[in-house]
């Protein structure tokens, strides 16, 4: 069984995956997509490709390339397409009636004002549709701030920053939950605490184990089904005695989560790749 790990820079997460593969005597080959020539005339003999690129763009092209050669990629391009775009994720969740904060998409200030009234008014959060680690998130408390932020985006932003994805702000009391989900099953979860309203561990939030309950298992399975399954990190907030899903990540970082949860997330990822590869080879 041969797994290719498609990557850009190798982080601690990828080192953990390499170690997990080694401990299972699995042949895992590291492929730096930045040095590759994605030419369909090249031959590859991988049973499966694990996409771990830190660059969404390069990961997308690498994934589509291997899929064109009929080599399965985890996660698939279909899953990546939905999860990498926050608006598409929201649409997929809403379509399946899975709890998620009210959201909207507009392209100018006037429409933004009306749309915000329709989702219940300020405060709201404006996010780039593509991006991660809590970068360029704006909590907007009033119309003056909205006007300023949208003007800056209109003048300074690239085209995708001129599509304004707006989400109702949810008061999460200094913590949110990240569930690690493989093939619809929650393998573990962490609580991310921060004094800041942005609770990404990349922004300094502290992770601790979160006990998985039945409601979490159910909503995560539903969300996984809605975006196409695979290996996902689902970010949730507690709301009104239940959960609401904030966003879903398809190339999850987990290095800070193995210790508090006591779960080998890297091992579970490699095991899932092996399972898919065996299924494909039947």
């Amino acid at each position, binding site marked *: 069984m041969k797994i290719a790990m498609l*990557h*850009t*820079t*190798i*982080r601690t997460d*990828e*080192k953990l995956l*390499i170690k997990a593969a080694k401990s299972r005597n699995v042949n895992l080959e*590291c492929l*730096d997509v930045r040095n590759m020539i994605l030419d369909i005339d090249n031959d590859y003999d991988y049973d499966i490709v694990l996409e771990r690129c*830190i*660059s*969404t*763009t390069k990961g997308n092209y690498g994934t589509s390339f291997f899929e064109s050669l009929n080599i399965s990629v985890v996660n698939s391009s279909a899953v990546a397409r939905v999860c990498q775009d926050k608006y598409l994720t929201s649409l997929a969740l809403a379509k399946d009636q899975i709890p998620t904060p009210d959201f909207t998409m507009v392209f100018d200030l006037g429409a933004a004002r009306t749309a915000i009234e329709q989702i219940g008014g300020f405060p709201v959060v404006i996010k780039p549709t*593509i*991006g*991660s*680690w809590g*970068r360029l998130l704006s909590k907007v408390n009033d119309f003056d701030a909205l006007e300023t932020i949208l003007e800056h985006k209109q003048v300074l932003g*690239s085209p995708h920053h001129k599509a304004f994805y707006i989400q109702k702000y949810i008061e999460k009391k200094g913590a949110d939950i990240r569930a690690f989900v493989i093939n619809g099953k929650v393998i573990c979860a962490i609580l991310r605490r921060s004094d800041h309203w942005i609770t990404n561990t990349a922004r300094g939030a502290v992770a601790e184990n979160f006990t998985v309950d039945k409601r979490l298992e159910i909503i995560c399975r539903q969300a996984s089904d809605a975006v196409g399954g695979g290996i996902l*990190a689902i970010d949730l907030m507690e709301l009104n005695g239940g959960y609401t899903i904030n966003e879903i*990540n*398809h*190339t*999850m*970082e987990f290095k800070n989560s193995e210790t508090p949860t006591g779960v080998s997330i890297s091992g579970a990822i490699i095991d899932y790749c092996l399972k898919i590869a065996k299924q494909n080879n039947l």
Partner: protein
Amino acid sequence: MTANCPICDAQVSIPADAKVSEVIRCVDCNNQLVIEKIDGDMTVLQEAPQVEEDWGE
């Protein structure tokens, strides 16, 4: 194994299980570096790429 930091020229300790493309930090100048090449006992480091807009999870 050690290699020279391309920014401050300090001796940077290279982990035994180091991989090409791995990101490490120079303890002297605190810059992030990437392992460009490993050839026997010789390791070549470069300044790590800066975060780009589409980087993330």
